[in-house]
């Protein structure tokens, strides 16, 4: 019963919040509603018994990602409402509606099957965090490590791209080649 109430409440709220995210002209509103929506999604996770995921959702999304976005927003000075020449809403709603229709139809299909045996079954007695931990560090250790590399890549990327060195473009600067030649000449001397 609680589950039902929570589900419908969360559903309605997320839909509304994400619609605001998508429709709002104000970055701040959009971002705030996005953050709130994500919190609510973690609520879904809790309902579904994926507590660990819910926590990660809160930490990573609401914590890290939204923080990043806020910083970015400040950097881009995007607090004021933004003038966008949005794509004609007819097309947007048509496409969005269509995709919603098709996806809903698809998911309305009897996807669920009783016959499917869980490959990595949950153990309600042990708790979600332990379950996740065991699977993550056995079966999904490799993706986990690769994800680490991915994060490293993202970090390096962020550092480089936002770094000062990017301010002077060697790609278009012909003088750097001169410098090099001069240095070579110096060495020769």
């Amino acid at each position: 019963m609680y589950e039902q109430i929570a589900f419908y409440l969360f559903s309605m709220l997320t839909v509304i919040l994400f619609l605001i995210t998508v429709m709002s002209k104000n970055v701040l509103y959009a971002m705030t509603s996005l953050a709130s929506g994500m919190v609510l999604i973690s609520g879904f996770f809790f309902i579904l018994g994926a507590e660990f995921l819910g926590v990660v959702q809160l930490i990573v999304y609401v914590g890290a990602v939204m923080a990043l976005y806020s910083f970015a927003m400040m950097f881009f000075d995007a607090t004021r409402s933004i003038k966008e020449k949005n794509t004609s809403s007819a097309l947007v709603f048509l496409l969005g509606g269509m995709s919603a229709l098709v996806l809903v139809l698809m998911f309305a299909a009897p996807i669920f099957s009783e016959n499917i045996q869980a490959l990595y079954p949950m153990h309600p007695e042990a708790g979600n965090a332990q379950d996740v931990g065991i699977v993550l560090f056995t079966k999904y250790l490799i993706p986990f490590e690769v994800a680490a590399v991915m994060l490293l890549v993202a970090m390096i990327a962020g550092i480089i791209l936002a770094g000062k060195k990017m301010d002077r473009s060697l790609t278009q600067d012909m003088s750097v080649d001169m410098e090099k030649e001069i240095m070579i000449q110096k060495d020769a001397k």
Partner: protein
Amino acid sequence: MLEPIKVSLESLNLITLAPMLIAIVGGLIILCIDLFKENLDKSLYVMLTILILVVDFGLVMGLNANERGFFDVMLIDGVSIVSQLLIVAGSILFIPLGLTSKRFHEYEYPEFFALFLFMVAGFQFMAASDNLILILVGLETASLALYTLIAMHNRSDSYEAAVKYFTMGALATAFYAMGSAVVYGLTGSVELYQVAQTLSSRLNEPGLMIAIFGSSVLLLSALAFKLSLFPFHTWAPDVYQGASAPLAGYMSVVPKIAAFVVSLRIFGMYIELGVEWVRVIILIIAVLTMTLGNIMALVQEDVKRMLAYSSISHAGFVVAALALDTTEGNTSIFLYYALFMFTNLGAFAMLWISRHKQRRFDDRFDNPYEKFAGLINIMPMGAVIMALFMLSLAGVPPFSVFWGKIYVMQAAVNAGYVWLAIVMGLNSAIAAYYYLKLVVYMFLKEPVKSVDVVYYNLSKPLMVIIGFATVATVGAIFYVQPLISYFYYMISASGY
């Protein structure tokens, strides 16, 4: 409390990880070297990268086919070995293009090479797994690195390219994730061999077709983006144009090989299961892609952009072979890209040596056709070599791409798709026009502007690379046999 899990080290089959591990560790080493001593020359890093990749290549060679490792996440079958070899070989061939006589922004970063190696590792993971999670993670690792590498060229075009590529990539990721979710919902698994098993038993359940088709379509949208298939190709020309020539050339080959492996595993599975619909859709997309790519390439003013469209068209060719789902068809994918790689390496290297820091011929383009006008008078060997590459791309025998084309067409004919082979043939004829256009400019027109700028960026290492590409392009006839027999053996051994 749960039982602690005991796993023996042998069962993990760690060797399957070794090649990627080398690349990742290599990337880390480069980062460390930079920490210890700054301002080392790019040549060092290029050579280090090559060395690391060579070791990587060697390790891939040493892998045994049809093994699984690490809780079955890693899949080392013939396809993954072949594709990894191609990925690594492609990387080895393209990275020395950094050794130009002029300095370009990205090569001044040691991180460039680290990212490059991580990217290679990412592609290798894509190729060496049938787990949708690892595929996605590998894909993202590689893609994120690639976006960065593009942006690091550091001029407004490359940012634009990176943004376009990135944003569309993010959308594609969403499609991929949604598709995987549907697959997961259908089968309770994201490991393709499990998926195939479960799906085959569920295939006859009523009302499920829509979900099966839907899952395939969502995954197809995501991979079609990577493979630059119509109508998901729109990024390709802009990104090629914005990226530096070596990277553009690289993008036209290596990521596509990785994406083809994934497509092969996913759509091969669908077709194998008897979902003919997927084959039809892929064929339609393939025909549209090769045709539209071609006719758009006809009207380009920039050689690099033209090559971008042409590589779209080539991808259309190959994806048609994929849809055939025969051993020959699958072999032809790799054969085609192996042969295409050499030619494209040469073509993009030629663009790269002619790269000038300023756009002296056109405001919008680095490599307008006019730049190559009368190249025969300025740089006869260069013109001849470039013409060879163009003819090869056009599919004139005996140059390398011809053998790829003919094998693809043979595969189509063997699978009973003669009309497809004819469409391919006619498309090749259309394609010949824009390749010829460059040849015409080089051989039959008078130079437009001063002479020196055309090979502004030339250096000895690049000459070696171009020489290699030329030899590989011209002499294809002599190594096609071993390639075919090896690829065919590996691919049939892995059951495709």
